[in-house]
């Protein structure tokens, strides 16, 4: 009997690495820092977000909504009825509890929205504690691109759900371009419909502490998720990206590629790539890759890929992680063509990110990302010149 129940997965088998999702704050106690999901995060620098004080401060939203796309305020109950994916850590559970309602971005079924939907979220001050709760719903067989751009400063904790309907094609990007002091704890979770395709890109440049989840699960077979990420940590910055691909349906795909650069004393990046292949998930394919380029002394890049496999009947599963400094042979090759050492560094970093930026699929954002990478490098070059 037990064996049959196991095989049928009547009791949901939980991941060993990912605590069960729940709206109940009791399920997400205040962390001590020793928990698996908190051990890399500098809790003291979260500026009290985890205390969960009520606050009705908001970010300023500036939006570009193409025709047919709507943005409306809904109640917490409505959010859950629509199919919001429950919080999986304390900050996101607090966001659900304190946001007082949610915002729904709705792309109707079969709508083909060519122009990107851009949501610009701006914070005025680190003194503002802001709880955010957003649902993005891309209807069945619809196509849409959504870019969420964060600027300014705040203590911001947000719960975001992306529901991709059957056969839909969605491209979602979250850009963290905060001022130096911002703290951003974000949970993006994606539910991929049957035969739907989704691309999610998380880009973190600014902020004192940024900790982003990108979770994906499937509503049926045939879903395909590509999770991309790019981060550039400067002196003292903590940029953390936590991925979780939950293969809960057969013949689904997940491909993860995150690339980061670090420069300056105390620059810290964390990449956690968790993949769970459930018993039911036969014929799936998953690959995750994280690459870090360390540009100076005093940086730390943590990179942890985890694969939990409960069925061997799969197409493929693999991961790769590499953290390295500049390659001497690459630099020699470029310099032997007359290119100065600094310019050679610039070219290598440019190339390192360029490969990834070309996959983002939103031309206006790709251009901006290339420029920001150049600006980050220029900061470093200027610092060298003044030293």
């Amino acid at each position, binding site marked *: 009997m037990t064996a049959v129940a196991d095989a049928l997965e009547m009791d949901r088998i939980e991941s060993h690495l990912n605590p069960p999702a729940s709206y109940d704050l009791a399920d997400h106690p205040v962390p001590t820092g020793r928990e698996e999901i908190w051990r890399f995060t500098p809790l003291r620098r979260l500026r009290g977000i985890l205390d969960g004080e009520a606050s009705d401060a908001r970010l300023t939203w500036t939006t570009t909504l193409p025709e047919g796309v709507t943005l409306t305020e809904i109640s917490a109950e409505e959010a859950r009825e629509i199919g919001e994916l429950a919080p999986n850590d304390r900050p996101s559970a607090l966001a659900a509890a304190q946001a007082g309602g949610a915002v729904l971005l709705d792309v109707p079924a079969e709508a083909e929205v060519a122009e990107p939907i851009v949501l610009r979220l701006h914070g005025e001050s680190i003194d503002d504690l802001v709880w955010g709760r957003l649902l993005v719903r891309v209807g069945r067989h619809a196509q849409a691109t959504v870019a969420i751009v964060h600027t300014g400063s705040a203590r911001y904790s947000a719960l975001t759900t992306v529901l991709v309907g059957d056969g839909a094609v969605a491209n979602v990007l979250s850009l963290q371009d905060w001022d130096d002091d911002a703290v951003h704890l974000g949970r993006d979770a994606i539910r991929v419909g049957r035969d739907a395709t989704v691309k999610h890109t998380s880009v973190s440049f600014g902020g004192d502490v940024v900790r982003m989840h990108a979770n994906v699960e499937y509503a049926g077979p045939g879903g395909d998720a590509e999770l991309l990420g790019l981060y550039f940590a400067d002196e003292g910055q903590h940029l953390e990206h936590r991925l979780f691909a939950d293969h809960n349906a057969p013949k689904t795909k997940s491909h993860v590629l995150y690339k980061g650069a670090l420069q300056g004393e105390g620059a810290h990046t964390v990449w956690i790539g968790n993949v769970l292949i459930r018993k039911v998930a036969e014929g799936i394919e998953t690959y995750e890759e994280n690459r870090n380029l360390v540009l100076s002394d005093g940086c730390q890049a943590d990179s942890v890929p985890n694969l939990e496999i409960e069925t061997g009947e799969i197409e493929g599963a693999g991961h790769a992680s590499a953290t390295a400094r500049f*390659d*001497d*042979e*690459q630099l*020699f*090759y*470029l*310099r*032997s*063509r*007359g*290119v*100065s*050492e600094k*310019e*050679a560094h610039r*070219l*290598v970093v*440019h*190339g*390192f*990110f*360029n*490969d990834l930026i070309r996959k983002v699929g939103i031309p206006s954002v790709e251009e901006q990302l290339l420029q920001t990478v150049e600006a980050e490098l220029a900061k470093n070059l200027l610092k060298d010149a003044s030293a």
Partner: protein
Amino acid sequence: MSTLEIKDLHVSVTTEDGPKEILKGVTLTIEDGETHAIMGPNGSGKSTLAYSVAGHPKYTVTGGSVTLDGEDVLAMSVDERARAGLFLAMQYPVEVPGVSVANFLRTAKTAIDGEAPKLRTWVKDVNTALGSLNLDPTFSQRSVNEGFSGGEKKRHEIAQLELLNPKVAVLDETDSGLDIDALKIVADGVNRFRAQEGKGVLLITHYTRILRYIEPDRVHVFVDGRVAESGGPELAEELEANGYEKYVGAAV
């Protein structure tokens, strides 16, 4: 004018057992407009000579001198050497992912000339150089050396030689791994470079085959870290017939 003068050059590499001397006193002068071939068995130090002249950090110069038109090459950084007019076509060109050939060539040209090339003429120059080496124009959109075939890598090196147009080119086994058609294309490129006034070439090779297409003024037999014998083009023919046995035997 371009004279590359190498005098009593000693070079070591670091090994697990401490420093090991690879070049044991190399003396060689490439006069204005000359092409010299360096031939020798594997492990004789030919490539070490090429990389030492270019300034690869793996090699430590322990004695001797290298000058280009009287300027002290050894005192220059790797990129300064290139800007002074030295070019090294590598045996194993390095991949630079995400950097397009077009971007790379333009960055290098700008660095060598000290100013960005005029866009219109530059595009034409690049297309001409790629075309003459039988490289498709779409080649310039690919990442540097990434996924290139062996032949494409070598032809890309020679395209750079033509576009950067140095004073002295060191070609490190540019002929290895090429079929005869690719070899001819590469040799034509080198010969176009040589046809200009006062350009020097140091051609490092294991085989005499390339010397049928690029005729050297001088041939040096390189054995055990030094020049064992020098002569005219006829020395290459003798090596073709008899191989390196007589020199290798003498060195042991």
